[in-house]
């Protein structure tokens, strides 16, 4: 197998609060190959967003990268200098965020915000950059791009703003695009369009995608491999079909089961939507042993006392006492 | 509950001022008005007169200590006045709406358009100089802040249905105002009053300095400064000490207000890192 584009190895992210240090994420490891779509799934607060920020070097106080490595194209970047990060961000790794309204500068026309990328990384003049910004808008299928480049963010709909964000992130053809819940804040009808646009553009340019979401169904449909995070740790990582067909970890199973499916009522008769009981623990109060044990239907004493080790699978791993 | 440095330092300064005011008869060295010995006029600070003496030979230290009473009283009374007026107007305006709300909003805008010092000057022009008119004037100048907060709170509660629910339960308007709205705005009100006290003390100093406030021979920090102005060349300590008294007291109130804001009203716009 050729060298992966991105390798995250035993990454720890620390959180400082009231003088104490907590681990917001631990032992996070995954690999993304060139051009591959990889999904990171979990509930709010599980640490997936801060992992993404760590890969971009955007963690700020009170968060910081602790132990572990982040290797981009063979280069270790977890403690890269500010100057190196400036070169990498935007040109090698791009990111789009969840809330397109607040993610764009309200006082600057969207065309200029796209054009900034070309001025920053490709030494373009502003007029060149604005022309290329218009092209970029065309690529993300925004109608009448020559007019739109002068619009301000508040004049665009949510879906259009997200297209602008995609245009910005992909402007300099990065090798990796990180998408942090890009469609969560959008209308359902628009979500599919945006996802298709993203995957289409990335496939055409050979850009790998790190897709972060709480929606397992969405991620499994667009990604080749999926990792499931819970309470700061990756609990399972498998190819997408395997995650659906044979989920190993009880949490993954709970997630898969809780997805409503068409035709299910016909098969199984009337039933309530299935859910996973309990809530995600807070960073300052993780349970001992396996962190999922308070909510796990199969928890035993071992689960409550000892943290499970990683068990390797044919194409992935799982972290569970019973199914490892 | 962690109390920041602001609250401690501010609270201490204010505490000292209050203590000085209350304990004045015991910690002053002389009678601030009567003990005037022209033989001792304009002496620099010494063991006998820690802050020196003024043109009439009175001990500055004692006058400052007694002056604390005036400044703090003016500050407290005027702020109580402002709060009462502001809260009443704000609550009723928000509650009853309609033309009354328009009137109150118009008045508030009007008050905001007139600088408070000018307004106080105008009122004192009518009422004449003296302590009472000073307090009245200062008590009428800054009610608009508490008014706005009270009104905003009522409107927000109204839109959340609290008021309707209470009415359905049969509560009268007054009761709703007192039990629902007031507790929510108590925090911001205290902050406004604390910061407002500082402003009132500064205003009192300014007005007394102009000759409109407390008239000599009674000691108020402001009137002491106005007396001191002409002697600035020969006896600078006459200006320094009353000014420092004002500065530290107001600083204390400002720090305290800031500290309280962190505790009571954490969503306020002034934020630290």
């Amino acid at each position: 197998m050729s060298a992966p584009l991105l390798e995250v190895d035993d990454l720890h992210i620390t959180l400082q609060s009231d003088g104490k240090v907590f681990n917001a994420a631990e032992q996070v490891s995954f690999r993304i190959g060139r051009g591959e779509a990889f999904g990171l799934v979990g509930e709010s607060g599980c640490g997936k967003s801060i992992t993404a920020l760590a890969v971009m070097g955007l963690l700020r106080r009170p968060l910081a990268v602790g132990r572990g490595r982040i290797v981009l194209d063979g280069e270790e970047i977890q403690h890269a200098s500010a100057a190196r990060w400036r070169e990498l961000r935007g040109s090698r790794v791009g990111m789009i965020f969840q809330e397109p309204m607040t993610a764009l500068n309200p006082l600057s026309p969207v065309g200029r915000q796209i054009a900034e990328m070309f001025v920053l990384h490709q030494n373009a003049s502003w007029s060149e950059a604005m022309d290329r910004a218009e092209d970029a808008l065309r690529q993300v299928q925004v109608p009448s791009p020559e007019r739109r480049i002068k619009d301000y963010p508040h004049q665009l709909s949510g879906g259009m703003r997200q297209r602008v964000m995609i245009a910005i992130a992909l402007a300099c053809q990065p090798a990796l695009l990180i998408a942090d819940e890009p469609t969560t804040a959008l209308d359902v009808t628009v979500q599919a369009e945006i996802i298709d646009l993203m995957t289409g553009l990335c496939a055409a340019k050979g850009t790998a995608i790190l897709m972060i979401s709480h929606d397992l169904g969405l991620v499994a449909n667009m990604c080749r491999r999926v990792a499931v995070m819970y309470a700061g740790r990756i609990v399972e990582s498998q190819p997408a079909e395997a995650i659906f067909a044979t989920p190993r970890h009880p949490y993954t199973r709970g997630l898969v089961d809780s997805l409503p499916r068409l035709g299910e009522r016909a098969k199984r008769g009337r039933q309530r939507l299935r859910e996973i009981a309990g809530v995600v623990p807070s960073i300052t109060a993780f349970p001992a042993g396996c962190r999922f044990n308070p909510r796990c239907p199969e928890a035993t004493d071992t689960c409550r006392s000892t943290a499970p080790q990683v068990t390797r699978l044919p194409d992935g791993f799982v972290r569970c006492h019973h199914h490892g | 509950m962690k109390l920041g440095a602001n609250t401690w330092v501010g609270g201490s300064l204010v505490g000292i001022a209050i203590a000085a005011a209350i304990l004045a008869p015991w910690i002053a060295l002389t009678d601030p008005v009567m003990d005037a010995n022209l033989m001792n006029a304009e002496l620099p600070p010494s063991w006998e007169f820690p802050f020196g003496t003024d043109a009439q030979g009175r001990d500055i230290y004692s006058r400052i200590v007694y002056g604390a009473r005036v400044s703090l009283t003016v500050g407290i009374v005027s702020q109580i006045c402002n709060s009462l007026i502001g809260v009443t107007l704000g609550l009723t305006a928000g509650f009853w709406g309609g033309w009354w709300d328009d009137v109150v909003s118009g008045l508030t805008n009007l008050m905001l358009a007139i600088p408070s010092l000018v307004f106080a000057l105008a009122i004192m022009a009518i009422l004449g100089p003296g302590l009472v008119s000073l307090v009245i004037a200062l008590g009428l100048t800054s009610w608009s802040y508490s008014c706005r907060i009270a009104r905003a709170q009522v409107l927000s509660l109204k839109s959340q249905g609290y008021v309707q629910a209470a009415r359905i339960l049969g509560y009268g308007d007054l009761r709703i105002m007192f039990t629902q709205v007031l507790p929510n705005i108590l925090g911001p009100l205290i902050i406004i009053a604390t910061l407002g006290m500082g402003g009132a003390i500064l205003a009192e100093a300014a007005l007394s300095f102009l000759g409109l406030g407390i008239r000599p021979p009674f000691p108020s920090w402001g009137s002491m400064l106005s007396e001191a102005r002409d002697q600035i060349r020969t006896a600078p300590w006459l200006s320094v000490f009353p000014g420092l008294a004002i500065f530290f007291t107001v600083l204390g109130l400002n720090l305290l207000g800031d500290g309280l804001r962190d505790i009571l009203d954490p969503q306020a716009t002034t934020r630290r890192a």
Partner: protein
Amino acid sequence: MLLVLVRRLGNIIPTLLAVVALVFLLFSVLPGSFISGMNEDGRSVMDPAVMERMRKEMGLDDPLHERFLKYVGKVATGDLGTSFRTREPVAKLMGARIWPSLKLVFAAMAFAICVGVTLGFLAALRPGSLIDTVSMVTAISGLSLSQFWFGLMLMYLFALMLNWLPSFGYGDGGLRNLILPAIALGVGPMALLARTTRAAVLDVLNADFVRTARSKGMSERRVVEWHVLRNALVLVVTIVGLQFGSLMGQAVVVEKLFSWPGVGSLLVDSVFQRDMPTVQGCILLIVLFFLFINTLVDLAYVAIDPRIRYG
């Protein structure tokens, strides 16, 4: 855009009218206070017949609403009455004083903006650092200062002790006379601006779109230049506007201290001499200035924030 302008300007009129009404009411509320004021001056007691004639002249016996309308009419045409003291038209008295007051206010504001905004900015860019603490301590001290006491101390240090600057007066209208009063007046707004700028910049630095800017690979300096500045400006402009407007009122004491021949010192003198028409005129002028500045600030918003323009 023009519509916005016209609307904003139109908003002044009701407030101005209300202020005129308030001023009118305040000084008419004590019947005969105008005339009796002259007696308290210590001048010779006036002949009752003369007083009666003056009352008729001034229309003090007419019903209140008539007097008010007459007053509004006069004000609109620039006739602010006649000073009791000097018998000159109030407008003329004030006219000579406007420029010195404006100079003082502008100079004070310039000082406040230069020092205050800079301090606030530096403090926000390095929160928790030494410069942050020093700036904020300076700011809160500035807010706690009695402006005239500070002016007095400045006067003592720079004029009397060091003899670098004149201690009072307008002099030839040059810069040397302006420095001390401007600093004394400007220290309060400077402090407020420092605090507000710091808060505004911090807010913006933590905003989502700044994170986006960083994710583009921008240096922190570029982030500040291209994205932070304009957004923080909005809040700063608000405060500058508010402070500016009320500075003329706050200048009253500083003007008196430094014997500065402005509208403020005229106001104080008139209050003492119970020269009511002049007092009224000064108050109106100060308020008009405030409203005018407010409108300018509103217009500045329209220029800075496109959401208002195209929203």
